[in-house]
């Protein structure tokens, strides 16, 4: 078991934990938490491949991960803004209760 495989397995496990959280929880914010975990797992994959890949001085993996962190922050901000707006409209964040098209 080389180090790269270890990091990739940890990233895969973190991804599936995030996916399970996003699919099984009721609260909309917890779905967003699951999404953040999935993004983190992908970043870990990128950096692990950057480190153990053939050309670490080309910085491709590191750059990709840095941009991914920035985009994830933007997406978290907009997503949570939407959840707040939704709560103001429906007075709940329970996703199982939002099962009708008409508000």
């Amino acid at each position: 078991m080389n180090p790269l495989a270890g990091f990739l397995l940890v990233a895969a496990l973190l991804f599936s934990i995030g996916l399970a959280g996003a699919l099984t929880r009721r609260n909309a914010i917890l779905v967003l938490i699951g999404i953040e975990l999935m993004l983190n797992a992908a970043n870990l994959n990128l950096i692990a491949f950057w480190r153990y890949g053939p050309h670490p001085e080309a910085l491709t993996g590191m750059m990709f991960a840095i941009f991914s962190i920035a985009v994830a922050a933007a997406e978290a901000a907009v997503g949570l803004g939407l959840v707040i707006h939704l709560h103001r409209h429906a007075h709940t964040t329970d996703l199982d209760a939002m099962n009708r098209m008409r508000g």
Partner: protein
Amino acid sequence: MSFAFYLIAALTLAGGLAAVLLKNTVHCALALTVAFAGQALLFLDLDAQFAGFAQILVYIGAVAILVVFAILLTKGSETPKGGVYSKHWLAGLVIAAAVFSMLGWAVIWSVHAVPRGPVGTPAVTVLDIGNALMSRYVLPLEIVALLLTAAMIGAVIIAMHEKERAK
């Protein structure tokens, strides 16, 4: 693989598990912060110092606080009536398990196919990252700047209190 790697990986996975399993939403957000911190330590273990510190600054310093504020503004600390898991939790769990088995199988099956490259510590300084950002990656940099501006304005507009209609 070193003992430090096992410890940090265990911490990250424990934080992630706690973040999706706990009942109290604020506890979930704090466990998410622990997962972010573990992830930053994993980045430092991989000699990616800039990414590690950027992870702490952006995720723990901004995203975690954002999640916590959103929980407080939507009264997320109250437990909903039907429990915290949705009706279709079993399907979600099965899907996640399937995804993990597929990814894990792909990793383990290709364990011998590690790319042949230098395995010493890459000497990457912040100066190299700055140079790369300004020369090769300048277009993504500008696009991300536009994206962040748009996201900031959009988030403020979406979450703003609408003016009351005149009576």
